[in-house]
């Protein structure tokens, strides 16, 4: 693939990501916002591919599109009177908002320019990335991995407890 094609594909995905993210923020319809998130998540996954992070890209699709977005859509669809609610997408405080925005952009740019290494790494990736991810997860990052799984397990138990059919409570009524 020549350089021009790669650049074109990159800019298409970058545009999709930014435009759909803007749509999520500015849309007055919750459902449209939720569906526009699909394109944002997908664009971000594509940008990961451009960084040679295939595994992260697929994980992004599985976790964000398959998990979080579907959960969000379910939540939105099962909420009563969701379509009647008018969302506020107007600009309310122009001056403080602009100052905050500029400060944030300045902070991010400062961090990028002082800490970021903009040169591409010399070391080329050898072999399967998945294998490396597996080894690192099971050795150096064992503790964070286990912590995350315990947090998820607790969340699962909590959800199951809340959603449980309460037999004793039902008999009282």
């Amino acid at each position, binding site marked *: 693939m020549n350089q021009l094609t790669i650049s074109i594909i990159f800019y298409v995905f970058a545009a999709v990501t930014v435009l759909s993210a803007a749509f999520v923020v500015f849309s007055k319809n919750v459902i449209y916002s939720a569906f526009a998130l699909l394109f944002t998540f997908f664009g971000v996954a594509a940008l990961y591919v451009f960084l040679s992070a295939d595994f992260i890209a*697929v*994980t992004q699709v599985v976790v964000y599109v398959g998990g979080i977005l579907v959960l969000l859509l379910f939540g939105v669809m099962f909420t009563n009177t969701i379509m009647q609610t008018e969302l506020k997408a107007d600009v309310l405080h122009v001056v403080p908002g602009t100052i905050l925005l500029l400060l944030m952009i300045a902070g991010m740019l400062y961090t990028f320019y002082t800490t970021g290494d903009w040169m591409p790494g010399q070391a080329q990736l050898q072999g399967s990335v998945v294998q490396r991810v597996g080894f690192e997860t099971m050795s150096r990052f064992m503790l964070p991995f286990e912590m995350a799984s315990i947090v998820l397990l607790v969340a699962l138990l909590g959800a199951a407890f809340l959603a449980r059919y309460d037999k004793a409570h039902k008999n009282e009524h």
Partner: protein
Amino acid sequence: MSHASSLNSWSDALSGFNLGWFPLGLVIVAAIPLVFIALYALTYGVYGERKISAFMQDRLGPMEVGPWGLLQTLADILKLLQKEDIVPNAADKFLFVIGPLVMFVGSFLAFVVLPFGPAFIGADLNVGLFYAVGIVALEVVGILASGWGSNNKWALYGAVRSVAQIVSYEIPASIALLCGAMMAGTLSMQQFCVAQSGPLGLLHWYLFSNPIAWLPFIIYFISSLAETNRAPFDIPEAESELVAGFFTEYTGMKFAMFFLAEYGSMFMVSGIISIVFLGGWASPLPNIGSLALNDMTSGPAWGAFWIIMKGFFFIFVQMWLRWTLPRLRVDQLMYLCWKVLTPFAFIAFVLTAVWEIYK
């Protein structure tokens, strides 16, 4: 491995083909699975399903158009093309239109990592299997978009049922596939096939060479039926309760898109199960002494033949089950997923790990 030198040679050569600055080869690589889905859904999918259902019920099936009704599906396509494209007044126009498109793209994207033989694959990703399982998420969003966009209670119920079912059955399906990944030690679809090809033919396949593989094989097969909304798990489109589920309001080509997507994912899950447990494009015939049957039936063209035949076999089994088994109730469906398949998938996972360590 004798295949390693020629692995992906056709698709690599094709994707490097540029017409001036325009990467024509890349477009052709992407178009091949699309043409394949369209042709197979037209011939084997629709015609095969009607004929198989007819034979199961002691009927003849379509017989009028062409010899043995062979041209019936062509006539159906012509009819669908001419139908009026109705968008209901009360529907959400944007979501209604985008739903079938997103769903079809989701089912088509998985074909990127499906190897059509040792020399051809869209992209030999090192996360191939993970990608094929994960990209189904897009289909789920398409179903929700069309169900909500139709503004119809049957459509919304069908979409919600379908999504609940797909999201739940992804868990036993993924764990069962993880057992296969442990056996092969890779996630690349081509390496799965390479690891299972050899002079002894089908004895190299994990289903026959590994004493535990039958358990994840069965778990994945059952879960894949639910993920493609096929009977006995077709409550999202249960005719007796929901008219037609999430595609109740659709007509013409949009309706056909749902069928293309369904047949596309049917072939995809059949392809995944053949690759992970049945050797993919590896030939089933063994070398018997000087009669080198395996060497004779291996190669790029034979590989394509074997993987498509294996896929068609599983699609036949899916159709066979559809016309044999009654559909499950919603609670039975969830019971089967969470209390039967998921625990057994975990057992299979642990057993496979133990076998892989101590074999």
